[in-house]
């Protein structure tokens, strides 16, 4: 439409960084898939769930492939958002969207990274039994730090964005969501506390004394999740209070996608954190829960990509 199209499409997005990011992302994902799909299933797992190696493959392979597909959607959604934020980077909302897209890019990168780390550690642990506690602790902290930085970046961007909208009456909505988060935190804390922290089962998940588990796992997660959900709330609040029918319509996809990704990601992590209790379930319902959450994350990123494309279109005509 305009002669600025070409400039807008390039968006200043550093192509060198982009390709390094994509190459590293593909390398991590491919290595994870190779290490997960090629080796024979762990006999201990087969015995625990009373299944054959063939059953295991039918149950686990679709989940792993679905996970990889959701990472690809994450990559596409994050890049679309980054491209949009680069186009408007010099404006007041550009800086806010830049933080949000950086958070999603980091989140997307951390997914294959932490999965691969866990997988590699799992292989090492089979041969070096003494390394299990150290590697488990490192793996848990990698997951916290990765998710934490990503959610804080998204939250900083969302807070900046919400400050751009006209002041509205947010108290009721804010009280409602903070109330819901308090209920969630209480339920989460309950599950953490009722877990028998001194049993070998709990040690297999954390290998930490109770005070370290609470102070360096439970509390940081609750803080990170608060920042993540607050980011989703701020983007919705911005969408609700900003002018522009077409702009708001495009923003709805972005706000919805952000909420779905953050909420599903929190649900996934919650299940992992309280997994000692879930071990009582058979493998099939557990996998259905995992399938559902992975699917939701993929859907969230599709919505983000659609929203970012619609917003970008406004900047390109």
């Amino acid at each position, binding site marked *: 439409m305009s002669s600025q199209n070409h400039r807008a499409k390039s968006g200043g997005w550093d192509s060198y960084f982009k390709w390094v990011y994509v190459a590293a992302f593909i390398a991590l994902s491919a290595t994870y898939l190779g290490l997960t799909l090629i080796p024979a299933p762990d006999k201990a797992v087969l015995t625990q769930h009373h299944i054959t190696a063939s059953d295991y493959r039918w149950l686990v392979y679709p989940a792993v492939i679905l996970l990889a597909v959701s990472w690809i959607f994450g990559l596409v959604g994050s890049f679309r958002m980054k491209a949009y934020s680069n186009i408007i980077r010099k404006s007041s909302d550009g800086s806010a969207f830049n933080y949000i897209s950086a958070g999603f890019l980091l989140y997307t990168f951390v997914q294959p990274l932490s999965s691969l780390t866990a997988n590699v550690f799992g292989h090492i642990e089979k041969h070096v039994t003494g390394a299990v506690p150290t590697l488990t602790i490192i793996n848990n902290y990698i997951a916290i730090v990765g998710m934490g930085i990503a959610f804080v970046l998204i939250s900083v961007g969302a807070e900046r964005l919400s400050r751009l909208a006209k002041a509205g009456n947010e108290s009721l909505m804010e009280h409602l969501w903070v109330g819901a988060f308090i209920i969630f935190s209480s339920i989460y804390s309950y599950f953490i506390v009722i877990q028998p922290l001194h049993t070998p089962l709990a040690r297999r998940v954390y290998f930490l004394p109770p005070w370290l588990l609470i102070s360096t796992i439970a509390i940081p997660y609750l803080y990170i999740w608060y920042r993540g959900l607050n980011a989703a709330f701020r983007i919705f609040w911005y969408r609700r209070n900003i002018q522009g029918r077409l702009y708001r319509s495009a923003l709805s996809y972005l706000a919805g996608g952000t909420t779905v990704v953050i909420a599903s990601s929190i649900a996934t992590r919650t299940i992992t954190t309280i997994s000692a209790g879930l071990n009582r379930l058979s493998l099939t319902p557990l996998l259905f829960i995992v399938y559902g959450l992975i699917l939701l994350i993929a859907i969230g990123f599709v919505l983000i990509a659609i929203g970012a494309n619609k917003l970008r279109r*406004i900047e390109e005509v």
Partner: protein
Amino acid sequence: MPAGSLKDQILEISQDYLGPAAERFIDRQISTHLKKSPDKITRSDLKVLIDWLKLSFTLLTDDGRIVSEYAKRLQLVAQGKSQEALDKKWNDG
């Protein structure tokens, strides 16, 4: 109370549809199609500008009612009925 410059009047209407993206949208249309600084448009530029704005707007939405409402409000500015154009959104509900 009449609004400010022509650009401000067009911007104010456009913000009802494009929010924070409106100023970038208007500036881009003026500098690309009229080859002018956005602050220097005159009433004689408006006809061409409104045609471009309407055309560009059709690429953003399939809803013909929004496009025609936007065009009508811009036409009111061109006719010097700026306040009417700014208020029209409320009359149209």
